[in-house]
């Protein structure tokens, strides 16, 4: 067993633990913070897999921006901060546990059988190559996806802003 293997086991165990925390904690802020940790560990895993650019993107986009959005969402919807017993739907809990566990079992079974002895060979940095490919071969999807992002931005603003009439009154 090599050092990298041990590190990866630790990372993945931590990943699972903090992600469980995301869905079980009864404190919304704690859930968001746990998600930050989940994402951070994911980023570390990506570094381990020599996907450092994706790791960087995760850190910048998710931890930097998306989590902030979530915190805003939590505050704007006045979710009760601190401990809150009402956060979970207790009726669903047992059934949800069954469903998610079955899915986990099925997935694991498939992964176990299919990728039994697959070995990952890490090849050092890949960022330069990634940039080249992204802006040559995949430049069209890249542009399309940026257009989608723009559309989402405009859509989000349109949805979230006040009624036109109200806005006008406010301005006056």
């Amino acid at each position: 067993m090599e050092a990298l293997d041990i590190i990866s086991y630790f990372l993945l165990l931590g990943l699972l633990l903090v992600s469980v925390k995301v869905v079980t904690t009864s404190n919304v802020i704690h859930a968001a913070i746990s998600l930050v940790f989940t994402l951070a560990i994911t980023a570390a895993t990506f570094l381990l897999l020599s996907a450092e650019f994706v790791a960087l993107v995760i850190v910048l986009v998710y931890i930097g921006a998306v989590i902030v959005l979530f915190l805003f969402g939590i505050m704007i919807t006045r979710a009760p901060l601190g401990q809150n017993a009402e956060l979970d739907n207790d009726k669903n809990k047992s059934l949800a546990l069954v469903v998610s566990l079955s899915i986990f079992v099925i997935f694991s079974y498939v992964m176990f059988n299919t990728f039994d002895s697959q070995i990952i060979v890490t090849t050092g940095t890949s960022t330069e190559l990634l940039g080249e490919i992204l802006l040559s071969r995949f430049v069209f999807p890249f542009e399309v996806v940026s257009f989608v992002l723009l559309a989402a931005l405009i859509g989000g603003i349109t949805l979230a802003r006040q009624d036109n009439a109200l806005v006008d009154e406010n301005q006056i």
Partner: protein
Amino acid sequence: MVNSNLITFLAEGKVTYTDGGTFAEYTWLIVVLPFIAALLITFFGKYLPLKGAEIALATIGFIFAFSSYLLYLNVTEGVASEFFINVGSIGSFDLEFGWVVDGLSIMMYFVVGTVASLVFIYATNYMQGEVRYTFFFTSLTLFAGSMLVLVSSPTLLQLLIGWELVGVCSYLLIGHYWEKKENSSAAMKAFITNKIADVGLMIGIIVLALSTGTMRISEILYQSTHDYESLKSVAYLAGVLLFIGAMGKSAQFPLHVWLPDAMAGPTPVSALMHAATMVTAGVYLLARMFPFYEGMASEALDVVLLFGVITLFAAGMIAIVQDDLKKVLAYSTVSQLGYMVAAIGSGAYTAALFHLWTHAFFKALLFLGAGSVIHAVHTNSMKEMGGLKKEMPRTYTTFILGTIALTGLPPLAGFFSKDEILASLNHGGYNTYFAIAVAGAFITAFYMTRAVVLTFFGEYRGNGHPHESDSMMTTPLIVLAGFAVTAGWVNIPGIYTGFTDWVTTRKNPIVEYHPESFDYFALTSGLLAGLAGIGLAYYVYQILGRPEDGDEKIKVEPIWNLLENKYYLDDFYFKYIINPTKSTLANTVDRFNTNILDKAVNLFGVAAIFLGNIVYNKFDQGGIDKALNISSSSTDALGARVKLLQTGKAQQYIMYFLSGVIVISLLILLVL
């Protein structure tokens, strides 16, 4: 997409020409615009200050300006090109639409543009306050547009489409006052007579297309001048069939019967129809296919000539006895069309087109003048006119100019064109036909003078006080009078023969007869015949007797009856074609119907009722209905239970969905 051709095989001809440049490329505009305009008028016309007339006027004005420029281009450098848009194919035939810009087309564009714009201006005033004013302008615009589709067509298919469109529009316009039975039946008559002829055209086009393997007119003409065997074997048939089509539209004997009845339409329609559009279509077709006739179907040309000569004489004779001013002009149109067709038949391409050109202007003038008179006296009958010289001086002057032009006195337009036709008949050695054509000139002069005398001279015999028409109506008259005087000067043998060059820009190298100088024998005979006709009519109607009983003076009973009954042609059609169809055939069919078909049907009916009762009571009520009721009530009961699943809670739906996913995954994993 657009595929343009400088019409190359004509390079063998002597005239230099170009492809017309940008303007030729955009000629499709004048074809498409009327249709757009018609749509606009239909939908928005009623809300506009002039009730849609302004759109029509703007469109036709544009067409006039555009075609004038094209004519200028053609005069200065000669234009011959065609453009194709391929829209698909049927079997080995390309479906192509497009537009031709060559001498013949440009001449037609200009005639349509000029006459139509003047008629439109005239109509805005003439039709003031009439029913369906806006719709009238829609149809009128469509009419002009359809004619442009026809004359711009580089393929036989598009020509046929334009041909039929013209027919439909004429139906709409002739039947404009459809509330009166005779008007709607006149429209019907025009449509059906044309349709009968169209069958000939259609078969002719099919024959041509199958034997040449193309719909392109230029390609067909190329083959007909280069001895293609497959075409040669059917050339006579195709030539005659095409001519049958032309007989319908151009009102050649014996299919001319629709045209006088078409006078039921408003006068601007008559003017447009008889001058620039519709009736010229047949002559245009013959002229367009002229190289084909010359090259391969010269026997068919004899048929063309024969019918042309018959028409010009027979229709002219009928015109003498008509009391309706518009009908005189209508038969005169038929007669003049006979001249044009006869010219084509004698191989004088230019002469026919030249007469079409001059005739368009003076006949439009005469019709609009007649309309002006009718507008003033509120009747078509010349028996109730007379003495309008003093009341309507402008109409009178222009009408007189039109009459002289039609009669063929120098130096007005009709003189040159009619002379050229007579000269070519004389040159071709058709002595009998030449004599008849000269007699036709005499008749023309006679009936026109008669019409003028009865309308404008003597005392007023109608009721009320006629007044000169509005300037909106007289201005087009004056402009047309200008054309009627000058239009003939573009082709004076020995002096200036520009017109010959215009219309022969793309003509094939086959020789047609074109007089280099005046044929003095033809000229003298034509002129003398005209003068004699004028003199005799003036003597008979003005000097010898009062116009109201003037007709009596020269009645020669049998002939007169024959003429007044239009050679019994309508009676013939009714007696031997329409009534037999209606009575004998219809009665037989009726008897067959009542005795055999009806009985059988009744038997079926009774049996069906009997069977139906059984089916209804036992099968339907007892079986199907019950089953349906049970199924619906059970569905209802089931639904009441199942609907509880629809909680509206998204998470439960996700749960169901995931449970399904799990089940399917397990199935795949365990079973497969």
